[in-house]
């Protein structure tokens, strides 16, 4: 029996193997060198596009209500913090082109209020808050839906939260006579408080002559706590607000 004889790898064969391996490594390195910057550029461009689209979406949301050039310029009163005493509001008169339509007019004044005064220290609402939607119900109750930033970016406290709400109600009172009451929603939802203090479950009186509460402003109550106090049960039909875009 003849045993199989394994031929030793000859010198030239080993050299060829080394050559091909080196070539492969070079190709990989060159490919990586070329493609990594391209991939990086593409990632940056994708991130930029995403950011742009977010900004665009935000701009679309924040975009002021289109101003009709034929709208008369009206001297409007907007309420921000008083320069003399930051614990109270003071009216600032600004000439604005305001629509005669109460919903558009309300959006225009609230967006101007959100934009803030010249002195940013006197603003009452956070700069990143956005008015997402605004409706007026037939009974004069206005519903303003704000982005979450209104609740998350406002300085927490009874005073600061109440001043924020008051700046809105007093600005609406001064500029939109059709609005009797204001209901504030956060991102389409009813919130219990603005930032832990001021109650958002009901409506705020805008015009004193309409201080009577709407038919059923009762917020959803918690389960009965003390037996002696009656907890009213809300039914589906007793919903306080039915949103009806105009």
């Amino acid at each position, binding site marked *: 029996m003849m045993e199989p004889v394994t031929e030793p790898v000859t010198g030239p064969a080993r050299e060829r193997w080394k050559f091909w391996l080196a070539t492969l490594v070079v190709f990989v390195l060159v490919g990586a060198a070329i493609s990594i910057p391209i991939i990086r550029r593409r990632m940056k461009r994708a991130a930029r596009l995403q950011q742009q689209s977010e900004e665009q979406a935000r701009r679309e949301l924040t975009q002021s209500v289109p101003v009709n050039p034929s709208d008369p310029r009206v001297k409007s009163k907007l309420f921000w913090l008083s320069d003399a005493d930051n614990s109270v509001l003071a009216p600032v008169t600004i000439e604005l082109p305001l629509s005669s339509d109460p919903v558009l007019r309300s959006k225009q004044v609230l967006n101007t209020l959100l934009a803030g005064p010249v002195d940013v220290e006197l603003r009452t609402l956070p700069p990143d808050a956005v008015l997402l939607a605004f409706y007026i119900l037939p009974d004069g109750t206005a519903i303003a839906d704000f982005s979450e930033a209104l609740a998350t970016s406002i300085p927490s*406290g009874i005073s600061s939260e109440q001043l924020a709400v008051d700046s809105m109600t007093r600005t609406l009172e001064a500029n939109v006579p059709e609005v009797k009451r204001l209901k504030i929603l956060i991102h389409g939802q009813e919130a219990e*408080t603005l930032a832990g*203090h001021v109650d958002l*479950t009901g409506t705020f009186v805008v015009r004193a002559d309409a201080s009577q509460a709407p038919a059923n402003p009762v917020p959803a109550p*918690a389960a009965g*706590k003390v037996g002696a106090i009656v907890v009213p049960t809300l039914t589906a039909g007793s919903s306080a607000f039915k949103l009806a875009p105009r």
Partner: protein
Amino acid sequence: MGEFDMLLDVGTSQRLRILAICGIAFLFLAGAIMTRGLQTSSQAHQGASSTAPSTSAVSMGQSAATAASGSPSGAQTSPSGLNVVVLDPAHGGTDLGARGTGGIQESDIVMEFAAEVRKALEQQGFQVVQTRQGNDNPSFDDRSAIANAQRNAVFITLHIASTGLPGTVRVYVNSDLPTVTTANGFIPWDRAQAPFLGLSRKLGDLVQGMLTQRFKGSPDTAQTATIRQLRTTAAPAIAVEVSSVVVNDRADLDHMAPGVADAIARGVVAFKPLYIVPSTSGALP
């Protein structure tokens, strides 16, 4: 006939037995009614000058005091002894409240203020109940429920603002709430503060006056705000907000605590003679 006579005899003895049982039951019932009547009478004498016991349903903790006073035909108010103060250090748990420089958190500082206020009130002879003892966060309704279960109590919620002139203190009472009572005289839970607004304003003005004497720059009278915590509280209720977490040094706030506590205690003492229990009809004293 003899058989019928026997039957008649049996029927008579059964009737007698039934009559005897009814008689015994009647005696027990009469005795129970008399005992109850005597107890009611003695309670009415102990309570106040009037002798007519209230027969209306008790709709709140405080209404028991109205019943004891025996005011006729649901009279509006009655004098009573204010002896409990429910102290509410706001926020807690994951709700830190206002946050300032150097890690100052409202939820922590209100606990320190509450300890000082508690001490000052107890020195004045009040029983103090706190809505939270540690770093937990009861719901608004749970906090209110603690006050609503007390008789003759006032409710004080403590806050530290994130704005305002540092070193000043503001007292708030709830904005007007439409008073609604149900047909049976009960007050809806979600507007429990409505009948107490007048008392809350008196308490608020008194406490604010005491605070302003000590902390210059504070308002002269209590302010109104739409405060969620106060709306469901069935007692004279105020919020005290100290300015602010935006101080250079936490010690500035710590130094305010004894003064705030003393002013609150003196305000509650001044309010005590004015404390009257409103009826559930929503009349504001």
